């Protein structure tokens, strides 16, 4: 108890110091006397106004937001019994953000605080993640994975909106990265009562939460209505999150970092954890904002959300490292879902090829240029449309195969370049080229993206080496790397003016303007790596049975894993470097293939590749014709088609048993 008081007091002292630093920061230098004066002896001078109307609200909202995110983190973690739970890891922030963007697109005249949209989005996300994560007991990892996937779905839908309604959603970009900038007390006045109510209620139920830590059965037998209190607690967490998100945007990782530091300091009782986490959350967020401002000068603004991600990402890696070790390495085989009836393989392949041919012909013929005279038409088709369509087909194949290989290797059907952090790495690489290399061509962008992808993959694999590539570790590290890359991407996009829409298009994944060089690159990749993958498939059949059995029947599991991941990552890097961040294909195509053909890898490889190519080519076609003369980037089309399928898939695999 004494210990705990000391933590709180110490936290408050640090917070006070940080606050002072925080207020002093900005384009106008202010003395401590002026600051004190502004608070206690307001004299209507410009300096006092500046402090009262800009700097103080920013500080106060930082304290409130940090504290509030921290208590929602505590609630989620203890009630879902998941040390990794928080608004950002569960997809709650992403859901809330999406909902706000959607709202502002349709009610662009609305100038208030979008609390209700934020709340609705958060609620929906939380409900979905709870349903998805419930398979096989409330397995923390399963739930976190569902959260990651859900975030992916929401953020791809968000970027679709941002791209389609660029004008309406323009003002949301800074907010979307999480920013404490305030220009009046409106935000504070709105959030403060809500956060205080949340804090009060969570303190009231804190005793019940303590009892629930003994396990549901014990708690029930002690006469506690476990289900009721769990939902109340999660509800409070959602309320706390969305009231903050509505004002300052989604801010990652505070909800994870603060409670964990508190628990590591040895605080045990929920009531005390809540209070100390609130203080510490405020310290973290205000500190991050102060740091972010220290790094910037003039009108540049480093969104604090991006900064917490850059601090919090490594923290998550560390946490994953700690938890990952206790999880032991699963020697399980891959958990896959196959259809009840399998189609005849040959018929399936022929059928798919025919469909691909059909879509190919349709793609060549369609695209709004039918009014052109035939000579021009031929030119357009041969020089522009054909390479683009072939690129879509080949990139689809490459991405699908990459996801397929990684899934078996990592023993995880949710693995894919985009969930593993390879895609965000490529995105960062591409943006660096777009903004920092003078006169960057599509070739230099591709190369830079390729390097980014490889670098991200290298980081992920090196860090998870010690846990013997434990699938859970990989996903967590991937999540952290993704967060860091996304944050960097946000910082770049926000602080630059030129090339914003070009980079948004790249980020959304596009087949627009691809040429024969792209086709050649992809073709070479498929012709060299494809056969290697095909040869590896024989051994992957064995690897799928789990480490022990695979070794027992004569596979060199380590070597096969290494080779397959190399091939998978190379394919991913090449694919992403050509068409940008096209997500989901690597998840969808292999699942469909397994569903159709069963578990043999060689058959799956072929069918997966065909399906992937078909998917991206179709997406390309749809993207070109639906809102002609504009275009929807094909990556977004894939996401919009893929997201529901993927959610359904998550739901149905959550019911699979071993």
């Amino acid at each position: 108890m004494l210990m705990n008081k000391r933590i709180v007091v110490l936290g408050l002292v640090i917070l006070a110091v940080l606050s002072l630093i925080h207020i002093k920061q900005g384009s106008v230098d202010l003395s401590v006397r002026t600051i004190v004066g502004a608070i206690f002896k307001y004299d209507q001078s410009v300096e006092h106004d500046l402090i009262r109307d800009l700097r103080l609200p920013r500080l106060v909202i930082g304290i409130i937001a940090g504290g509030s995110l921290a208590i929602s983190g505590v609630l989620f973690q203890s009630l879902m019994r998941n040390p990794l739970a928080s608004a950002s890891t569960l997809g709650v922030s992403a859901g809330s953000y999406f909902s706000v963007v959607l709202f502002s697109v349709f009610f662009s005249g609305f100038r208030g605080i979008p609390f209700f949209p934020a709340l609705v989005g958060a609620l929906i996300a939380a409900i979905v993640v709870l349903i998805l994560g419930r398979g096989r007991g409330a397995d923390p990892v399963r739930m976190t994975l569902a959260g990651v996937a859900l975030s992916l779905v929401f953020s791809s839908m968000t970027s679709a909106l941002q791209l389609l309604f660029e004008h309406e959603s323009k003002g949301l970009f800074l907010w979307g990265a999480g920013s404490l900038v305030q220009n009046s007390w409106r935000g504070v006045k709105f959030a403060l009562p809500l956060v205080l109510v949340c804090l009060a209620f969570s303190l009231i139920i804190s005793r019940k939460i303590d009892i629930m830590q003994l396990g549901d059965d014990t708690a029930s037998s002690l006469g506690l209505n476990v289900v009721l209190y769990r939902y109340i607690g999660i509800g409070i967490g959602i309320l706390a999150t969305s009231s903050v998100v509505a004002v300052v945007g989604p801010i990652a990782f505070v909800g994870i970092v603060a409670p964990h530091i508190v628990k590591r300091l040895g605080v045990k009782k929920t009531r005390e954890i809540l209070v100390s986490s609130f203080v510490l959350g405020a310290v973290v967020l205000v500190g991050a904002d102060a740091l972010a401002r220290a790094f910037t000068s003039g009108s540049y603004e480093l969104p604090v959300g991006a900064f917490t991600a850059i601090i919090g990402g490594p923290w998550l890696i560390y946490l994953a490292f700690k938890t990952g070790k206790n999880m032991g390495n699963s020697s399980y085989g891959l958990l896959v879902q196959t259809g009840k009836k399998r189609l005849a393989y040959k018929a399936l392949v022929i059928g798919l090829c025919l469909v691909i041919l059909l879509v190919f012909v349709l793609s060549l013929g369609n695209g709004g240029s039918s009014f052109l005279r035939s000579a021009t038409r031929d030119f357009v088709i041969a020089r522009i449309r054909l390479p683009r369509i072939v690129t879509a087909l080949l990139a689809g194949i490459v991405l699908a195969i990459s996801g397929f290989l990684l899934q078996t290797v990592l023993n995880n059907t949710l693995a894919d370049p985009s969930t593993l952090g390879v895609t965000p790495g490529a995105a960062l690489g591409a943006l660096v080229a777009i903004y920092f290399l003078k006169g960057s061509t599509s070739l230099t962008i591709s190369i830079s993206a390729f390097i980014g992808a490889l670098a991200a993959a290298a980081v992920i694999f090196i860090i998870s080496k010690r846990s013997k590539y434990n699938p859970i570790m990989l996903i967590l590290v991937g999540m952290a790397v993704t967060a860091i890359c996304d944050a960097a991407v946000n910082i770049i996009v926000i602080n630059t003016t030129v090339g914003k829409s070009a980079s948004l298009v790249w980020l959304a994944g596009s087949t627009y303007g691809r040429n024969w060089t792209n086709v050649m690159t992809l073709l070479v990749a498929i012709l060299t790596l494809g056969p290697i993958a095909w040869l590896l498939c024989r051994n992957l059949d064995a690897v799928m049975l789990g480490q022990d059995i695979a070794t027992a029947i004569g596979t060199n599991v380590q070597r096969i894993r290494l080779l397959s991941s190399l091939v998978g990552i190379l394919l991913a890097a090449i694919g992403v470097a050509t068409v940008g961040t096209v997500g989901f294909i690597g998840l969808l195509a292999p699942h469909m293939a397994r569903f159709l053909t069963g578990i043999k890898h060689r058959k799956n490889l072929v069918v997966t590749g065909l399906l992937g190519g078909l998917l991206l080519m179709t997406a390309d076609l749809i993207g070109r014709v639906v809102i002609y003369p504009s275009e929807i980037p094909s990556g977004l089309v894939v996401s919009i088609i893929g997201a529901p399928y993927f959610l359904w898939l998550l739901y149905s695999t959550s019911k699979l048993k071993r």
Partner: protein
Amino acid sequence: MKNIRGSKLTLGYENTVIIDGVSIEFPMNKITILIGANGCGKSTMVRSFARLLKPMEGQVLLNGRNISTMVNKDISKELAILPQNPIVAGGITVKELVEMGRFPYQNWQNKLKAEDKEMVEKALKDTNMLEFKDRRLDSLSGGQKQRVWIAMVLAQGTDIILLDEPTTFLDVTYQIEILDLIYKLNREEGKTIVMVLHDLNLSSRYADHMIALKDKRVYRQGTPDQVVTKDLIKDVFGMDCEIIKDPLYKTPMLVPYSQAIWSSSPASQAI
């Protein structure tokens, strides 16, 4: 000359030693059964003989060669193992899994030859799983699954077979059936069998050789008559019992005392 033995084996995980400097040889063409309390390291031992766990010290010798220097595929043609609680993907069918037992004999083309198909068929027949061959593994009961795994191990066609608790999940009929099958393989085809079994009475009946583990070492080994004795059961399992003769096969049979009933029931005084 086929044989498998361990020399000065020290086994364990990270920093904990589970088996400490044990040299052991499994007699050829015989059935050897490992016994010991839960967590004493039976699975650890079996796994390391099957190169699934690297020894901390010492080596496993297969036909005189250090197993860690051998090509993995060659080992799989000599030695098969059924780990404790194997878990696998739901989508696979019985036949597909059993065919995986022929993996070491296939080249890059991945085609099953006539001989492979024969072996698979025989394994399925021996385990009475032929009628289930197109069923998906996840639609089977625990005992049926176990039989599929055994079929896979048999399909591997090795001279040495290691089995970690092959009869868990099986009802009493199938326990006997599987043990009979293993016995037949041993007597008719001369296969060397090493297995972990918890049922001491069945162990005594089927074993040629028994090895009892305790305190990181081999506590005693020999014929069932030498190993299954009142004092050993007391020392290894910490349990009081009487040993009588199995009325059918004259092998040792264990009749345990129950603590609770002993103190309350007068009938037990009569023994």
